[in-house]
């Protein structure tokens, strides 16, 4: 199969935090935040990682840049795998990727003015001074007016801060931008502005994006591919159009159904997701979604489903994936031809 090589690829990436201290070891097993997450982002592609809070999506973004140390798996950048997860190995990725934090204001040094914040990546990269005109040009590109450059971060509004964060990310033209909830706390018009800015950046520099969000309408608006994360595992991943048209995992479908529709005449009839996300410390047996799944069978309680390819790029981890255009609620769920299980 001919495939464009991915810019960045995470293969079975896991993050676990120890729960027992080094000096007083206890039997407590490590807490798994991410388990075997495999995601690839191709050059110029926008991948959306969608999940509820606590699904590990922020951790994934940080793990890609080495801000959280992965415990297992592999990261391949530009076709070359990282030798290990030590900070020096991540330098290669950090040089070419930027991270947009969930709260842009906290990601700025409170004692630096915006101009100097924007210049920071360039100063680090070429360790020289940065001309004022360069910074103004950068700010203009991100839609920031130049009077803001002499302000301190706390004086910016939410949208201005977000734009400043994007401007900083563009300071050294990145090949990958990891954006953690890029529209959090912005009103709808500003949200659109930020997303259009992303699209412009992609157009101009062929930058890849990994957008981490819980907001499906954002994913619908910009993404090429979608990865659905639940309790640190990928439940479904595939082309955005396919997933929005015909979700295969009951969870994906439930997420789509819980998205508000502006038209009261159009009502979806599928059940919403039941209850709360189970804790990471008490993962359910078998398929971890079975506690909230409307279609759960006995098998789901005991056996963990594997990632199964549905089409070339579409994978789902479910014993009983939904068939496309299934509109009737409830069992009996359609069985797909059995694939390699176990």
């Amino acid at each position, binding site marked *: 199969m001919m495939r464009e090589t991915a810019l960045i690829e995470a293969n079975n990436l896991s993050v676990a935090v120890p729960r027992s201290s080094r000096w007083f070891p206890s039997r407590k097993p490590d807490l798994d935040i991410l388990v075997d997450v495999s995601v690839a982002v191709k050059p110029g592609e926008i991948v959306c990682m969608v999940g509820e809070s606590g699904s590990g999506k922020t951790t994934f973004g940080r793990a890609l840049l080495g*801000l959280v140390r992965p415990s297992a798996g592999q990261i391949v950048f530009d076709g070359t795998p990282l030798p290990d997860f030590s900070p020096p190995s991540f*330098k290669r990725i950090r040089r070419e990727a930027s991270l947009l934090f969930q709260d842009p204001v*906290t*990601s700025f040094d*409170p004692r630096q003015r915006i101009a100097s914040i924007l210049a920071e990546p360039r100063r*680090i990269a070429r360790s020289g001074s940065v001309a004022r005109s360069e910074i103004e040009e950068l700010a203009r590109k991100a*839609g920031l007016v130049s009077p803001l*450059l002499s302000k301190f971060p706390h004086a910016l*509004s939410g949208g201005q801060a977000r734009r400043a964060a994007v401007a900083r990310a563009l300071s050294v033209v990145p090949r990958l931008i990891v954006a953690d909830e890029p529209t959090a706390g912005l009103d709808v018009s500003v949200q659109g502005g930020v997303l259009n800015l992303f699209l412009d950046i992609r157009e101009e520099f062929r930058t890849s994006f990994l957008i981490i969000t819980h907001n499906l309408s954002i994913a619908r608006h910009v993404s090429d591919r979608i990865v659905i994360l639940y309790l640190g595992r990928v439940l479904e991943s595939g082309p955005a159009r396919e997933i929005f048209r015909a979700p295969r995992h009951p969870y994906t479908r439930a997420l789509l159904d819980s998205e508000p529709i502006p038209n009261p005449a159009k009502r979806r009839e599928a059940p919403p997701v039941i209850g709360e996300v189970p804790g990471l410390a008490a993962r359910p047996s078998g398929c971890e979604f079975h506690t909230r799944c409307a279609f759960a069978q006995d098998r789901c309680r005991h056996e963990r489903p594997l990632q199964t390819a549905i089409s070339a790029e579409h994978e789902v981890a479910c014993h009983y994936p939904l068939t496309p255009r299934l509109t009737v609620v409830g069992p009996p769920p359609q069985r797909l031809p059995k694939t390699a299980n176990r």
Partner: protein
Amino acid sequence: MAVIGIDTNPLQSQTREPGWLRRSGRVVSDIFHTPLGGIGITLVVLILVVAVFAQWIAPYNPTAISVKERLAGPSFTHLLGTDQLGRDLFSRVIVGTQTAMMVAISALSIALVAALPLGLIAGYGPRWLDAALILVFDSLSSLPMIMLGLAIVVLLGPGIPTVILVIVLYSVPSYARLVRTQTLSLKSRDFIKAEQAMNASTPRILFNHLLPNVIGPLLILACLDISTVITLEAGLSFLGLGVKPQVPSWGNILSDGFSVIRSTALPVIAGGAPLILATIGFTFFGEALRDALDPKLARERKP
């Protein structure tokens, strides 16, 4: 596009970062803006001027003994009277100001310069180094101040350098601890994570980002500590462990006055009042400085 609330009038908006002179001018005007800050800065400036020009202000030689005039009351010749050796108290207080400020400022600068790197390394560096440094700080601060002072005076002999050394040894652990705690809380903040994600080197993170965020609270603590240090120096001198008895210092004046308190309280008041004024001045100044230096607290200025 939704860029809201921006002052787009080019005449009113400043695009250039103000220079340090202008910025410090703003800080000073901010300090003056609060009544306590005004009192503080006035006292501090007064004390510093007196300290610098002590030799010219003092009407008499502060160590000149005149037994005939011992324990004289206030008069036009001796504004604050004389002590039991007939030395002019006013002159001694003035020159004592110089001693106090010299000791306080040099001791605190040395302590700050030593504590900053130690605290940054302890907070940002590896865990074992942190543990080792904390052990040293704790052992130092567990020694009783007076015992430490006594031991050092016995080893090195009394004098201003000894007093400075005692104060440095006494204050470095607490400053370094403050820097360490601040560093620890800052290093998990997003902006430090962002620096790491931008490939910033460790020295860059330490000195360009952690240091400016840590130094504010530290300078304020030092400012508030000037009064403690002056009291300390006075205390050591009072006990005879500080500056030599003939050198005028507020502690020596107090100590001399204490022995004659049954006949006159004037020497004790003359030694104690400047101590109280200095304490009030530097405390108010420090607090106003804290408010003025914090960009979040700095009041909005109209052009």
